[in-house]
């Protein structure tokens, strides 16, 4: 029977629209179905999409103008030893130092709805047919093959390949017999509060930093250590987001009374933590409260990790494929990466006229070879906090926090990051300057609240000669970097011998050298603080006034 479409994408969340757009770019007839009335109505998450997501994102995101709420320069961890006595230690080692920050960001804080809508519009512009208010209830199956979908209105729509981006619950994948329901100990319920606050107050209290709080179980300020996140607060443009989350099962038997516990945590932290009580509470007004489950520890379970992410006629991406991260809850990058890989494989499969499981295995191979996806679904630092609690060992508590959300993350992130970075540089030596332009453009967009489709202010170009001169200098620096990178590629073989083995051992190198480097690094940062601040302000002024076109990627 003839197919109605080449590709059907189920779900227009962070992954779905990316896959759909890339398929339509390759001139495949693509349909995207979304159960909510408006794209993003039902996506609860947002928060920080980390920098690696943007660096290695599909080009239309990296080189585009997506809407976000505030750049994030890093994390301030509050290690709460005794909240009543105010005995709190701070680990803020994972922060991009000035003058790089805030332009070179650690990530971007965003609301899901505008971001997902931005992605969906890009997909529609590329030729995707989008149908909202349409719940997919089942698949059309012929033998083992998925041949299309069935909607809540009973409509049957056929396609060569279904890309399933239905999100973490995976109701359809379970129905199709491809995956199983996750056990409760791998799922966390996130209780989220959104407060309105004046931008000037947020600038002063938070700046660009995300605040995270961790404390002993008996203080009841957050879930038992290792069974969820402590409290997290994200600064947005003129609002803040507050999230506490806890696993659905804290031991082999018991399911906690989450309603009661969340109220208790929320009350304790907001009434006892001084910076919340004195600084935030008088200035913040509650605007929304929502909750959503997410796959906190799915990746840590080998059996769950082995569940198929493809079958005859179907590829699963993002949360639906179990790719939510186990440490930072940063599932958006993996949703983007897997969407791009799925689109590439789907395009190839349709060209080869082979959509069988055997052909689509290429997708699984690429997911397994993706260094950052694999790193992000296997991180154990958050889980290990349980050990610190069991032993009530402050040293261990500090160690795991430092490794997960402090500079210690370099001891496990550097190698996977460098591996991907090198692959990107090899593919396109001008990528470095694209990244630099991305950071500057994103920051200028943020300063002027100017994103695609929602231009609130038009960026005015000044006629100042000084700014023009700086623009020329900026562009010639980029040209110089491009030149160097292109010439380095000519000596690729030599580099291969040196750089690849070096990148493979970077984690070990970091593990060994960090105890020495870190104190030196923080002393230098402190020493250079006055100069760095001045330089940072100068850079911000330049970005504010510069002609936006110098940050475009053509």
């Amino acid at each position: 029977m003839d197919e109605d479409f080449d590709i059907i994408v189920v779900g227009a969340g962070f992954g779905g629209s990316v896959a759909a757009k890339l398929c339509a770019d390759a001139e495949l007839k693509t349909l995207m179905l979304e159960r909510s009335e408006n794209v993003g109505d039902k996506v609860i998450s947002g928060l920080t999409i980390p920098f690696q997501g943007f660096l290695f994102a599909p080009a239309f995101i990296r080189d585009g103008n997506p809407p976000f709420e505030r750049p994030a320069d890093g994390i301030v961890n509050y290690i709460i030893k005794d909240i009543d006595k105010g005995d709190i230690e701070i680990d803020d080692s994972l922060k991009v130092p000035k003058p790089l920050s805030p332009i070179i960001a650690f990530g971007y804080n965003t609301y899901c709805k505008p971001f997902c809508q931005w992605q969906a519009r890009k997909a529609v512009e590329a030729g995707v047919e989008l149908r909202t208010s349409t719940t997919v209830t089942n698949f059309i199956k012929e033998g083992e093959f998925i041949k299309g979908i069935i909607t809540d209105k009973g409509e049957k729509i056929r396609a060569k390949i279904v890309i399933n981006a239905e999100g973490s619950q995976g109701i359809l994948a379970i129905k199709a017999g491809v995956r199983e329901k996750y056990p409760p100990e791998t799922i966390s319920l996130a209780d989220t509060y959104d407060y309105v606050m004046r931008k000037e107050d947020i600038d002063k209290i938070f700046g660009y930093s995300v605040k995270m709080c961790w404390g002993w179980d008996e203080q009841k300020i957050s879930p038992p250590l290792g069974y969820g996140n402590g409290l997290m607060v994200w600064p947005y443009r003129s609002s803040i987001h507050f999230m506490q989350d806890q696993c659905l099962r804290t031991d082999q038997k018991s399911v906690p009374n989450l309603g009661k516990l969340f109220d208790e945590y929320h009350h304790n932290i907001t009434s006892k933590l001084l910076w919340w009580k004195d600084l935030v509470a008088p200035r913040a007004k509650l605007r929304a409260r929502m909750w959503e489950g997410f796959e906190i520890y799915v990746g840590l379970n080998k059996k769950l990790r082995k569940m198929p992410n493809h079958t005859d006629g179907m590829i699963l991406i993002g949360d639906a494929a179990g790719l939510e991260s186990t440490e930072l809850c940063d599932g958006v990058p993996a949703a983007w990466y897997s969407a791009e890989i799925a689109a590439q494989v789907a395009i190839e499969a349709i060209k080869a006229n082979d959509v069988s499981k055997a052909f689509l295995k290429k997708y699984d191979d690429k997911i397994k070879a993706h260094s950052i996806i694999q790193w992000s679904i296997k991180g154990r630092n958050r889980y290990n906090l349980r050990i610190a609690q069991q032993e009530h060992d402050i040293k261990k508590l500090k160690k795991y926090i430092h490794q997960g959300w402090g500079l210690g993350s370099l001891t496990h992130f550097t190698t996977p990051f460098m591996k991907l970075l090198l692959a990107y540089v090899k593919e396109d030596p001008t990528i470095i300057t694209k990244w630099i332009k991305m950071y500057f453009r994103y920051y200028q967009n943020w300063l002027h609240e100017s994103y695609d489709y929602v231009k609130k202010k038009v960026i005015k170009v000044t006629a100042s000669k000084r700014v023009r001169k700086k623009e020329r200098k900026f562009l010639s620096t980029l040209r110089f970097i491009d030149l160097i990178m292109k010439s380095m590629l000519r000596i690729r073989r030599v580099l291969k011998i040196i750089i690849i083995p070096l990148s493979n051992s970077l984690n070990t190198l970091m593990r060994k050298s960090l105890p020495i480097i870190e104190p030196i690094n923080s002393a230098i940062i402190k020493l250079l603080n006055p100069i760095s601040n001045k330089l940072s302000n100068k850079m911000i002024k330049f970005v504010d006034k510069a002609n936006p076109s110098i940050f475009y990627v053509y």
Partner: protein
Amino acid sequence: MVKTFKDFPGVQWVEGAGEFIKINDEKCIGCGNCVKVCLAGCFEIMEKKAKIKSLEKCLECAVCWYVCQEEAIIFSWPPGGTGYKSDWG
């Protein structure tokens, strides 16, 4: 028609969602897990069985379904365009 509730600001519920979560009485053992995790208070235990009080504040998080170890909760999504929506997720 769209509904809102004071205790859950910033979220709207579009009518027409219907009974998208159901309980299989025969399988339910009345363990109360669903009651404990549902922040919208959708469940209650009556005569040692879970009952759905109302799904009007349900946020479709599916955690009731995750914690039901007896597979007594039959979970599906509401019809397209109905159920909760929010701008602040």
